[in-house]
């Protein structure tokens, strides 16, 4: 009985294939739309997943607490002396001063992020070495030496030369020598970054001695971040105390908003796809009713006709999945998800170089399948139940 049943399923599969082939234009258009939807969903998923991974990498390097001085609601330089006033708080591992700001390159119309801090002072500063594609992180005594991100390398043509100059506020030039470059894997954080010593940053921005832009506080026990932050606020009124969990939340809000916006677009695409699938695949035209009736007269059962529909749908959606997922992978890996760039990253001049490492979570694949294949199967097979209501004798008359 079993081999006979198998034979029957193979015959049904054969019939399904040939009926797909008979309607090849229609089948192909459904397949393409279907693959496009899966492509969008899968690309989107891979990109957001990759960005989330990046964001958590970034956070790993973020100090537990950042202090900024506020005046009239705006940030201004914070005195280095504040450091001493924190000495009494138990649980603080280290306080590292930092000068960071933006530099607008008027020639190339690009924004760079400048970070001046003595990296070796960071508790895990050594780990930064692993983020370098080449070169080394300069020591605090090495004046004028910097580590740059990949887009800086490109924008300033640093593959061919080793030095570049930036303007001080008084328009005099300060020259830097490249000591190392960050690897692509840390792009999201380092892409437009120029890391230099505290003294160089002070010189570049002409910040008076004794002042920095912020103080990074490293704590011994992450569980105490909240308590320590409260104590700092009490000791230093007028200082904004940013904790890592707060920053994390901000990231999540930004990503959440962006992916929310994307999700709405995708939902719209999905809805129109389901409508199309319904429209394309479900309707029982008079010809189809006639065909079903003829098949019934010749001894096909309703379940056989349903099986044909089912196999047709499985073939179409299976092919669409393979095509869509493959295209999404290629899109994200080889074309750096260029379609989603504007939505996800904003239109920064520097961002297009961002290198993403796509990750496809199994749960998300299943989710995508649940959102595409299942509605499609439902949209094609369920209406085929209507074939059960086609009387077998309806083809007998005229």
């Amino acid at each position: 009985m079993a081999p006979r049943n198998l034979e029957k399923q193979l015959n049904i599969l054969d019939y399904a294939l040939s009926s797909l082939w008979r309607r090849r234009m229609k089948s192909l258009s459904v397949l393409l739309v279907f693959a496009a939807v899966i492509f969008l969903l899968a690309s989107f998923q891979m990109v957001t997943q990759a960005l989330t991974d990046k964001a958590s990498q970034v956070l790993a390097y973020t100090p537990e607490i950042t202090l900024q001085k506020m005046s009239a609601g705006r940030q201004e330089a914070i005195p280095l002396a504040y450091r001493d006033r924190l000495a009494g708080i138990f649980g603080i591992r280290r306080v590292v001063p930092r000068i960071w700001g933006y530099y607008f390159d008027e020639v190339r119309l690009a924004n760079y992020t400048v970070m001046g801090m003595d990296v070796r002072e960071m508790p895990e500063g050594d780990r930064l070495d692993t983020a370098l594609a080449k070169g080394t992180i300069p020591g605090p005594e090495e004046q004028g030496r910097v580590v740059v991100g990949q887009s800086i390398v490109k924008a300033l043509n640093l593959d061919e030369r080793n030095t570049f100059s930036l303007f001080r506020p008084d328009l005099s030039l300060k020259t830097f020598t490249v000591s190392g470059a960050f690897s692509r894997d840390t792009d999201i954080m380092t892409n437009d970054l120029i890391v230099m010593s505290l003294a160089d940053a002070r010189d570049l921005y002409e910040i008076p001695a004794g002042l920095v832009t912020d103080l990074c506080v490293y704590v011994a026990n992450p569980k105490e971040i909240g308590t320590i932050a409260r104590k700092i606020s009490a000791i230093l009124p007028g200082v904004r105390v940013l904790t890592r969990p707060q920053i994390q939340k901000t990231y999540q809000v930004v990503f959440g908003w962006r992916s929310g916006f994307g999700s709405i677009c995708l939902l719209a695409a999905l809805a129109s796809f389901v409508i199309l699938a319904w429209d394309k695949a479900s309707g029982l035209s008079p010809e189809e009713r006639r065909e079903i009736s003829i098949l019934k007269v010749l001894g096909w059962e309703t379940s056989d006709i349903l099986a044909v529909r089912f196999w047709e749908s499985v073939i179409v959606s299976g092919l669409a999945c393979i095509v869509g997922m493959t295209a999404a992978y290629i899109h994200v890996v080889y074309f750096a998800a260029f379609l989603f760039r504007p939505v996800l990253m904003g239109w920064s001049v520097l961002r297009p170089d961002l290198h993403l490492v796509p990750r496809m979570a199994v749960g998300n694949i299943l989710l995508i399948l649940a959102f595409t294949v299942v509605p499609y199967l439902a949209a094609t097979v369920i209406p085929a139940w209507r074939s059960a209501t086609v009387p077998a004798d309806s083809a007998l008359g005229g």
Partner: protein
Amino acid sequence: MIIECKNLTKSYAVENTMVHAADTVNLSVNKGDFLVILGHSGSGKTTLLSLIGGLTSPDKGQVFIDGVENWQQSDRALSTMRNSKIGFIFQFASLIPTLSIMENILLPLSFGENPAGSRDLALDILDQVGLADKGKAFPSQLSGGQQRRVAIARSFINCPDIILADEPTGDLDEETERDILALFRRYNEQGTTFVVVTHNSDLAATQKDARVFSMRQGVLSGQAA
């Protein structure tokens, strides 16, 4: 007894009046019989074939094929019965336009063991209806009479015990009609049972020992004079 109809009744409501398409029809058919049922248009001939073939369910009465009542079995068993025991020749065009002639003919075999020889068998039957060269053609490329002959060929493909034929020679020229009726006779002499409904009162004469009935407003009456 291969076919037995007992008090078979079927009515349709057409614009507030009941049309009796089959009215207490009683009929017994033995294996190898050749039945000819004559009747005017609208007398219920197609309805009767459809009832016998288990395509239409009766309002009252029963149809037994090989002793099994059609509507006492599952959809599956009924479909299998239709597929294996009955060849149906439709009154009107019944080919699937998007399938080639060969594919149309092989349709009833889709669920059999599909012996390797089925294509040869199909070619042989196509040859018998005079269309050996049309296997790859599509229905739209054939004349009405040629399509009719393909449908006839299809009804024989699964070697059924019973052929139910609805006006099988309606659109054939005389010579082709003669060939087809000779084909029927050959199959009949080998034991296939035929129930043929037609307007053509000369048809019975071409067959051996044909039993002739007439139908009028759903009522079947015996051997016509």
